[in-house]
């Protein structure tokens, strides 16, 4: 038995080892490098490898970085909220109201992915721009006299663009969670006196929480670090921490500071995710009281 198990174990190891090596090479190695960098110092063209916390000190105290980090968090929390809140009704509709061809609906939801992300961002520029589709339509309809300027090159544009881009990633996990709900539970709740609204808050929502959670984390974590969207539609007030990290690694030629900023934001996002995770586990229980 133990010999068998050992054999099995070895065979298993052998089977996963290519994947393992791949993961180490592509994930762990760059990460370790970034962490090492963050403790070094850029000395014009050379790197001074004596360990120091100076980069972290600057990253956490300089008002500019703090402002950018907070703004990134604000934007991504906003994007996540908007995305998850708008994804829930869509997922709910497909799961509960669509009787036939659910697969087709899911397929169509992923349709935006058939084009490159850059293309989609540029499309939003076309839609939201000064002479864009949105303004032209409002002008034509006589609702406004001159083009609105607050819709492009600011935080709003970043939120709209990101929420649109991440919608399918939020819809799918929520849909899966809703699909898993045994429909007889809903009938039992109704049988015991609940109308549709009470039933939703007492059964459907608590049981959908794992999906909502997954959606929240899937959207929140990458959006904090997004840098293309703010660059293209965010103007100056829409810039986020990743734009600064990019600048540090590039033009500013201060890779260690960039690395410290990257590691810091990783920890902040990790901490935030953990908080959300813990909070969501209590929601189900609290809902009943």
């Amino acid at each position, binding site marked *: 038995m133990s010999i068998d198990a050992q054999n099995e174990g070895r065979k298993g190891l052998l089977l996963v080892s290519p994947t393992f090596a791949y993961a180490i090479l592509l994930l762990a190695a760059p990460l370790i490098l970034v962490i090492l960098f963050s403790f070094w110092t850029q000395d014009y063209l050379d790197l001074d490898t004596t360990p120091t916390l100076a980069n972290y000190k600057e990253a956490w105290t300089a008002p500019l970085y703090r402002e950018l980090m907070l703004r990134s968090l604000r934007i991504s929390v906003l994007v996540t909220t908007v995305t998850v809140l708008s994804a829930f009704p869509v997922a709910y509709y497909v799961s509960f109201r669509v009787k036939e061809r659910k697969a087709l609906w899911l397929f169509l939801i992923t349709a935006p992915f058939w084009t490159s992300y850059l293309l989609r961002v540029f499309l939003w520029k076309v839609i939201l721009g000064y002479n864009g589709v949105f303004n032209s339509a409002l002008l034509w309809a006589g609702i406004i006299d001159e083009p609105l300027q607050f819709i492009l090159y600011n935080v709003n544009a970043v939120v709209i663009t990101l929420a649109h881009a991440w919608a399918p990633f939020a819809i799918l996990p929520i849909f899966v969670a809703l699909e898993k709900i045994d429909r007889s*539970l809903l*009938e*039992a709740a109704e*049988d015991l*006196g*609940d*109308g549709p609204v009470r039933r939703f808050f*007492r059964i459907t929502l608590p049981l959908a929480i794992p999906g909502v959670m997954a959606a929240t984390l899937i959207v929140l974590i990458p959006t904090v670090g997004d840098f293309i969207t703010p660059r293209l539609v965010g103007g100056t007030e829409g810039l986020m921490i990743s734009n600064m990290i990019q600048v540090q690694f590039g033009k500013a030629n201060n890779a260690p500071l960039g690395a410290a900023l990257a590691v810091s934001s990783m920890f902040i996002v990790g901490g935030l995710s953990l908080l959300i995770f813990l909070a969501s586990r209590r929601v189900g229980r609290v809902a*009943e009281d």
Partner: protein
Amino acid sequence: MTAANADKPIITLDNVTRSFGAVQALRGVSAEIREGEFFSLLGPSGCGKTTLLRMIAGFDEPTTGTITLDGKPMAGIAANHRPTNMVFQSYAIFPHLSVGDNVGYGLKKKRLPKAEYDREVEEALEMVSLGGYGPRAAHTLSGGQRQRVALARALIMRPKVILLDEPLSALDKKLREQMQIELRRLQRSVGITFILVTHDQEEALIMSDRIAVMFDGQIAQLDSPEALYRKPNTQRVASFIGVMNFLEAKASGEKGDKISLDIQALGKLDIPASALPAGMKSSEITRVGVRPEMMSIVLEGAKSTGHEIDAEIAESEYYGDMTYYLVSLPGKDEPVTISMRNTAGRAVLEPGSKTRVSFSPESIVVFR
């Protein structure tokens, strides 16, 4: 059935039909269910039992026909406003709630003081022998316990009617038999009308005051368990409930309160005219039936009852307390089934033994 309410209808089904596209799940069901009785819907899978139960609960509406509950027509009244509660086949225990909160689910709306709520939940749990289980997580329960929680959750609402959709079918045999007795006892003590859906005829016979036997979306016969067993009015009902031997028969005349029959293998005999279903003429008789325990194998030395024929044992099945014999009768190709109690000193006959079979004319069942 509590005597005071005897025969007062709590539910009236009036020509209820239900179609799902081309499928006619119910083809006109009319029945009265009495207050406080244990009523069963019995029939093979697909005959429309669940459909009917769900319409009483309010999860579905009849295509035509009406359902009246406690004097009120139920059309357009949603499940959450009906005085019925359901025990689901899957039990539908809420996985995110404790056992206590499952049981108290329907009470929450009443906003009772916590002490009173806790007391009611505990009382309901005790009724199903789960006292003290309140704080447990729902997923720690066994199948039998889930079934009890589902029942307590319905009982606590004190509804007019409790609906049970094959509640015992997922349990193993021992537990199922125990729950049958418990359910029956519980129903008697709370006095609430129970409507049980089952495909198990034995279960229906054991538990019910009255049984509606359903085939193909219609009620074939609605009667007490005893009447259903003794006087099934069609061959289909007869063979669905217990075992029945069918024999070709023809009436050869009537004299007073007797009908003379010429029955395959049994020969000529007179049966009471009361055996004839109401409204049927004796000339319409084509087949009759005899239950296995209504015939007996004549053992050596036994006194003759007058009606005896030669027979040969084809096969025997030994069940401990009973032996079922397949017996060949002259003039009939298919052997008949005869059951004998294994009383002290009675030997089990070997296949091939020649013997005689006796029966009484009173045990002959006439089918419409």
